């Protein structure tokens, strides 16, 4: 009787992205930053652009993004990542430049910088994580916080009468002529994660083609500051955030058809 060989003949179907540094992240359990990082890294790998990509980290939980991506990185003041990206892209037009920003960074303190980067049709890719709260400082109200949502600075729930209404940045920026691609996706389940990756890939391809400003908003969780379990947080995105922040492609390059929602 011959003994069958034990040499494994397995083909890897999934591996660690080259564009992701093998560094454990500091993100809280259940936070979707890890998923978003991985998706961006996979897209960079698939497009073969790791050595030509320059990232810009912002201020917020993702401030240390440069520790987790194996690409060149700058770290911007709060809200200013699109301005840094402009300075980098204008002087390095052959590189692919992306910012990675949260909702406090992009929609509040950096609202002018993002709006005008879009208006200039700045040829950059923006990865925008919207979890409707300030994570790093401990759960304060963000411009994206939903009416009635309790945070440490809206303890009775956000009251639009005194605290205003949430900003829908994708819809807002899609109105700007310089924006070439604007989409909102969600990270709450596998099907949506796959759609999110497709949108991120498009947002990098739009930059490769020199078509102008591209942004993907990703609805994200913050279990720690929402006071919910990881699983409940994903359900909160699905049941509460998605209805308030509809998913879809709000602006696509003219040559392309819109992907179904």
């Amino acid at each position, binding site marked *: 009787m011959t003994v069958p060989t034990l040499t494994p003949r397995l083909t890897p179907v999934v591996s660690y992205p080259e564009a992701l540094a093998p560094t454990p992240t500091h993100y809280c359990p259940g936070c979707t930053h890890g998923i978003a990082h991985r998706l961006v890294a996979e897209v960079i790998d698939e497009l073969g652009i790791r050595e*030509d990509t*320059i990232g810009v*980290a912002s201020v917020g939980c993702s401030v240390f993004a*440069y520790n987790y991506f194996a690409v*060149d990185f700058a770290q911007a003041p709060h809200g200013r990542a699109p*301005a840094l*990206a402009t*300075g980098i892209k204008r002087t*390095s037009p052959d590189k692919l430049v992306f910012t990675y920003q949260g909702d406090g960074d992009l929609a509040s303190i950096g609202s*002018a910088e993002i709006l005008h980067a879009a208006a200039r049709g700045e040829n950059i890719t923006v990865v925008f994580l919207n979890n409707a709260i300030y994570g790093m400082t401990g759960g304060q109200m963000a411009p994206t916080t939903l009416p009635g949502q309790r945070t440490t600075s809206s303890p009775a729930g956000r009251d639009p009468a005194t605290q205003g209404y949430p900003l829908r940045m994708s819809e807002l920026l899609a109105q700007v002529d310089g924006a070439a691609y604007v989409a909102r996706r969600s990270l709450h389940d596998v099907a949506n994660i796959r759609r999110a990756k497709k949108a991120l890939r498009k947002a990098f391809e739009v930059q490769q083609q020199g078509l102008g400003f591209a942004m993907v908003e990703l609805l994200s969780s913050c279990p720690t500051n929402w006071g919910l379990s990881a699983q409940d947080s994903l359900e909160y995105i699905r049941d509460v955030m998605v209805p308030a922040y509809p998913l879809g492609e709000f602006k696509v390059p003219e040559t392309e058809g819109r992907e179904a929602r």
Partner: protein
Amino acid sequence: MARALLKGNVAFAEAAVRAGCEAYFGYPITPQTEALEHMAKRMPELGRAFVQAESEVAAINMVYGAATAGVRVMTSSSSPGVSLMMEGLSYIAGTRVPAVLVDVMRGGPGLGNIAPAQSDYAQMVRGGPHGDMKMIVLAPATVQELIDLTVEAFDLAERYRCITVVLADGSLGQMMEPAELPPMRTPRAADERPAWALTGARGREPHALTSIYLDPEQEEAYNLELQATYRAIEAAEVRYVEERLEGARIAVVAFGTAGRLSLTAIDAARAEGIEVGLFRPVSLYPFPEERLRQLAERVDALLVVEMNAGQMIDDVRRVTRERVPIRFYGRTGGVVPMPEEVLEAIRGLHAELVREEAVA
């Protein structure tokens, strides 16, 4: 290159172009807007980067971005605009990337006016941006110096990986006088950017250019590296101009336009027999401490003249330890003192010395 009649704002912008400036980001503000306008035309025709930013906040952060990419980059503005740049300046200093800022100062505080002033000395020399940081600050007194110091600013910024500020005022920005521009330098090729720059991690480990160190010990160690750079700057980059100081009993200490107009008063005073000369700091940081200290040992009194309410005078007092009487003459709010006013202040100080001698 022949001498030509040049307006200050256009002159420094063109000087930057010739110094190999590869990117300019700015926002219109009087009295420096001609620089932005010059760059709007010149940079695109040379295939270089120009963006009129949505604010000075954005402009300085575009400068920051381009600086991380390792190119020669500058912005220019005036006092209220420069106030908006404080955040970006601190990050640029904290990340140790080179950048050049020309500040054409105007009257303040607040919106103030558009007249020449020197009231941002303290802001630029002693902080403004947060954190333990310094910027090299150079103060021109003529359009020629404005040109020369702008060119030098790029070299210094790169040598020390720091910010160099050319601190001019509205009169220098707006005046026209004969000056000579430098020859055109070829900008660096894309593959000649500094080794630390963000150029894409091709065949090397990724670079991260950041200013955050959560561990206080690590932040302190980083700060000490910055401080070592500042000590090197203080040792090597002091610049000043001395005029008519030979045998002088009184030294006028004044920078930029105040120094220039004081010289007219000094010549008039000398014609009256008053032995007075001029000490004009050109590098405000690093301040010419040693030379000023020596000067205070051989004159009988100092007269500090500034176009502000008295800012550099604090450094003069500190450096000389007030071993001689120090008097101040200044106009603020955008008022430029007339040489006659400075002459009157020199006469007053001289009379004071004569009275003291009589008493002695």
